[in-house]
């Protein structure tokens, strides 16, 4: 049994994209698609930057620092938003080792 996103997404957590998740970056937005669950998401610029920071090595706090630098903001100003976005990635089933939220699991799985 894997943990849910709200149980693990903390500053020291390292988000790893799921093996079946593919991404396309177009202009200032991105699209994620999970070839296993067939879920998809349209990411705005901020979410795209956060997703591209999820490289399987950076911790949540390191991703916060990158996002803060990019938007010229203090890290504390983006922490809540970055954590929430990563939690949503997990809830949507896009992160390795994180259980998707129950409503994201197809009924026949």
């Amino acid at each position, binding site marked *: 049994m894997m943990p849910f996103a709200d149980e693990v997404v903390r500053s020291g957590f390292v988000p790893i994209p799921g093996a079946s998740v593919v991404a396309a970056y*177009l*202009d200032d*937005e991105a*699209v994620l*698609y999970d*070839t296993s669950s*067939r879920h*998809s*998401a349209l*990411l705005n610029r901020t979410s795209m930057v956060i997703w591209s920071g999820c490289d399987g090595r950076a911790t949540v706090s390191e991703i916060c620092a990158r996002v803060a630098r990019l938007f010229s903001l203090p890290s504390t100003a983006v922490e809540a938003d970055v954590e929430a976005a990563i939690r949503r990635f997990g809830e949507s089933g896009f992160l390795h080792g994180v259980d998707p939220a129950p409503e994201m699991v197809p009924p026949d799985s």
Partner: protein
Amino acid sequence: MTTTRAYHVLGFSFSFESDDTALVEVIDRCYRDLPAADGELSVLRAMSMPDGSYEVTLQHPSGEIEMCEGFVSRFGIVAVIAWEVNHRAELSRATWPVLHAAVTAGPLGAVALCGQSRSGKSTIAAAAAQLGWRHLSDDLAPIDVASLMVHPYARPIMLRSGGRGLLDELPDMPAGHGDYFGDEWFLAASELGAVAETSPVPLVAIVFLEWNDAAELVPISRAATLHALVLNSTTLGLSGEPVFRALEQLATVVPGYRLRFAHVSEAIELVRPLVGA
């Protein structure tokens, strides 16, 4: 047993046969816009059962017979056959991006009108057919991304009572054919006045349909286009990443729009400049 001519649809060639001669005539009329097939054929067969229902099977070119559906009522038989043909045609192009879309065309090229069931695809395709526009499909749009051409799939246009009520007068059905339709009627686009395309046509726009009180055609970003394509692709679930990358390529080069409309005539007027009709 009576048999139709042989039809070719994408990578699927078939003829239809039945012990019900009138049903064979109905299918022949519905599929009259499909080009003729040559070579190996599958045979879709609907046999009458003692209780008045039909049993539908598919005989593959190898001779193997596959059971498709049993206990099909007379009112549902054309819909079941249409579903089977759709399914086989779609499987024959599983590695292509195939959109759940109606496709109509004019001098500038073809527009794919994407949407789920009851989004107005077939009704708009029928209205465009009544105006004499070129017809490619009311349901599936297989796209060759390398050439940016959309391939025709001129199956009969499926119209429910709600959609029929929004159109100009429809042609009369031959006597007895109405017995084979429930709420869903199937009409060949050429019966409505369209030129049914048999060759691929350049794709000039992808439009996503949305019922709305105010009519508008709004350009959307390339990522929003890709996301909407993902939601309207029938082969992405079968083929995964290769089709996703093909859709990405499509979204990169073909403009995407959101079309909001309350009346079919509004949709037609907004699509008209895209196809140059």
